[in-house]
């Protein structure tokens, strides 16, 4: 469940003693992200409103959304990976029914600096938009 995953991530982040460890963990998450398919590294799949480049590509298979995602900046890529943990391989309904205040649930503003939240908001908006679109697809 989405809320459960968020709680787990929140716990992990909370347990880290300082900003260095927290950013270290985020960066490490990013490094664990699956390779982004080069054929989708196009303008069309870019997320607007991020300070660095972010790509997000959705696929619907058997009612589940599979995302590919990437960024050219390490920290942003880490945040992308975090989002993937939460939203990848969910149904459109699961995503749409989840709360949209992820940054708050993770206390990201305390953990990282507030301005990181902006890019995150753009990505979440995009994820929810895809979920909305797929939720309208007739089965």
């Amino acid at each position: 469940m989405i809320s459960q995953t968020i709680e787990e991530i929140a716990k992990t982040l909370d347990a880290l003693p300082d900003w260095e460890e927290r950013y270290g963990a985020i960066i490490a998450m990013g490094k664990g992200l699956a390779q982004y398919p080069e054929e989708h590294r196009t303008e069309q799949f870019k997320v607007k409103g991020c300070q660095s480049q972010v790509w997000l590509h959705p696929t619907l298979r058997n009612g589940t959304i599979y995302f590919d995602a990437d960024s050219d900046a390490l920290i942003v890529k880490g945040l992308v990976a975090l989002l993937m943990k939460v939203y990848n391989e969910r149904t459109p309904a699961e995503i749409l029914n989840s709360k949209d205040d992820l940054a708050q649930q993770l206390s990201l503003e305390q953990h990282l600096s507030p301005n990181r939240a902006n890019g995150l908001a753009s990505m979440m908006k995009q994820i929810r938009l895809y979920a909305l679109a797929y939720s309208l697809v007739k089965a």
Partner: protein
Amino acid sequence: MIQELRSQFPILQRYVHGGKPLVYLDNAATTQKPQSVIDAISNFYTTSNANAHRGGHALGAEATALYEGARSTVAEFLHAQHDSIVFTRGATESLNLLAVSIERTYGARLAGKSIVVSEMEHHANIVPWQLLCERTGADLRVIRVTDDGSLDMEHALEHIDESCAVVSIVHMSNVLGTINDVQTVCARAKELGAIAIVDGSQYVVHHDVNVAEIGCDAYVFSGHKLYAPFGIGVLCGRYEFLAELEPYQTGGAMIDRVSFEKTTYGEPPVRFEAGTPNIEGAIGLGAAIKWLSGLDRDAIRTKEHSLAKNLVEGLESDSRVRILGKRHALNGIVSLVVDGIHAHDLGVLMDEQGVAVRTGHHCAMPLMQRFGVGSTLRASLAAYSSREDVDAFLHAFSKSCRMLG
């Protein structure tokens, strides 16, 4: 001396991110404001607030005197005459005003002519001219920047030819710190009868300006980068140049008379100041310039140079660092990329350590493209920058690089 100076800037005592002392090195984006500027604003609203130029009453006269006094202060600062100073919102508006008023004045005669800018311009000195070109059929010509971050003067003098209607060049690059020989560029432009414009947004922060010596028709800058409030800027025009220009915005104050049949306009500078101006901003700018003129600007420039030198030398100890236009960085604006590390990541981690720098394209995408980079990390100095700032920067920088592998 530096401590006395810094103590005039209350914000420099701040801590960010829970306890890290603020190290503010984003001065090319905007400078902090000395207490005397903050006080000038409060005092104005507490004692003399009224609309200028319209009032026949005591407060109106005081506000007008303060507003026009600020205009005189700016005029002296640039060695220009009082009526040459038009107050705008900032450099961006000054350049937009020029582009639109030039279009309205010279109209169809611009077709087939060329407008010359350089590869190192801020977007504010590119896009207004692009649109003018689109609308009039003029041609946008771009002076090249050399590999070492200088304006290619040979290319410049070649490019400014008989077809040229306007040359608009930055005095000091907001990315590289390059100071251009605008005097030679303007002389060439004037020789050929072209309009010569200089964007002094960064230059005025560090240097004194004499517009007559530069020989330009117009010189522009923003107040907020010069220790003054937001929302105020300057267009300093040669009076005879301004007197020929059609107005930009229209409305109150700038008119002579209005009827539904015909409207006539006032003389410069009011012709270009439609509506209620930012009286407070002008007064704040006047206070900032007065504050500046109480400083030993030579000494401050020397200090800024030596701090920039420390910065550059400190950075060079990491072989992955590449400073764009390194020769020019000593002017107080240092832009860099690190091999294998995204500038954005660096900026985030440095911010966590209290160090405020700018990362991104700095509103100069064509220059980024010229150097084949997407974004840079930029540290920029001001009068209150200290050795401690530079040390903190270098410390945070190497720690961030380590964290990013």
